[in-house]
């Protein structure tokens, strides 16, 4: 593998590790952004330009910001008193390690069956657009509905928030 791959991988993995290990929640969110960026670059390395840019815009531009918002709204910036890891963190770590072991083993065991390098595909945005409304129009519509529902749900949650604020104000 090429050198750039290792660099990008290191970046992403470092970001991910930082995201789960840091004590300050805001630092975790920021590290998450780094991980997302790394992911986007990995996508670019895989000649999936549209996916990479979409990843960058959505995740780093929206999700990460959303996470920061949530952290700030829930006063997560303060350091918690009881410790950041749960009491049974070892068990969780073991399970995660087990999952990695299984996945790794699956990958290593199927190395012979994996396909080899092929030519770089030429993917244009036009092709993607055509595919979206052509072949994949159904998933597109469903995702649209899903996004609408999510938006409406968020609004409803926000409404409740407002009544909650009013109640809290009266107390």
């Amino acid at each position, binding site marked *: 593998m090429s050198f750039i*791959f290792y660099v990008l991988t290191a970046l992403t993995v470092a970001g991910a590790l930082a995201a789960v290990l840091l004590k300050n929640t805001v630092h975790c969110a920021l590290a998450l952004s780094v991980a997302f960026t790394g992911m986007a670059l990995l996508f670019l390395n895989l000649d999936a330009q549209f996916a990479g840019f979409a990843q960058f815009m959505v995740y780093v531009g929206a999700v990460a910001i959303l996470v920061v918002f949530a952290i700030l709204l829930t006063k997560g910036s303060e350091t918690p008193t009881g410790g950041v890891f*749960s009491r049974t963190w070892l068990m969780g770590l073991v399970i995660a390690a087990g999952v990695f072991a299984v996945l790794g083993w699956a990958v290593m065991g199927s190395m012979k069956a994996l396909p080899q390098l092929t030519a770089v595909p030429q993917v244009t945005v036009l092709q993607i657009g055509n595919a979206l409304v052509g072949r994949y129009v159904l998933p597109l519509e469903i995702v649209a509905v899903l996004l609408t529902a999510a938006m409406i749900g968020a609004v409803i949650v926000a409404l409740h928030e407002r009544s909650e604020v009013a109640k809290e104000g009266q107390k």
Partner: protein
Amino acid sequence: MTPLACYLLVAALMFSIGLAGALTRRNAILVLIGIELMLNAANLNLIAFWRYGPHPEKLTGMIFAIFSIAVAAAEAAVGLGLVIQIHRHAHTTDIDAMDRMKG
């Protein structure tokens, strides 16, 4: 070690790290962060297979990944909104304390 295998391993590693975070951290938001990492790992998997698959011209993997990103974004929004709502009720985001569904 084929390139595909490397990517897959990276994806697996990411997935495990995300899982470890979701399983061990106390803060609910960090659980969501872990979930995002897992989703990302899955996306990487998809893109990797698309790239090194037999028919990359079919765009299947790419479209799949795009849809996955969209859904993940929606889910993150809803999830974080819920966490905020829980915080308003319980004044904490410690999921160890959220065991009202205890059996």
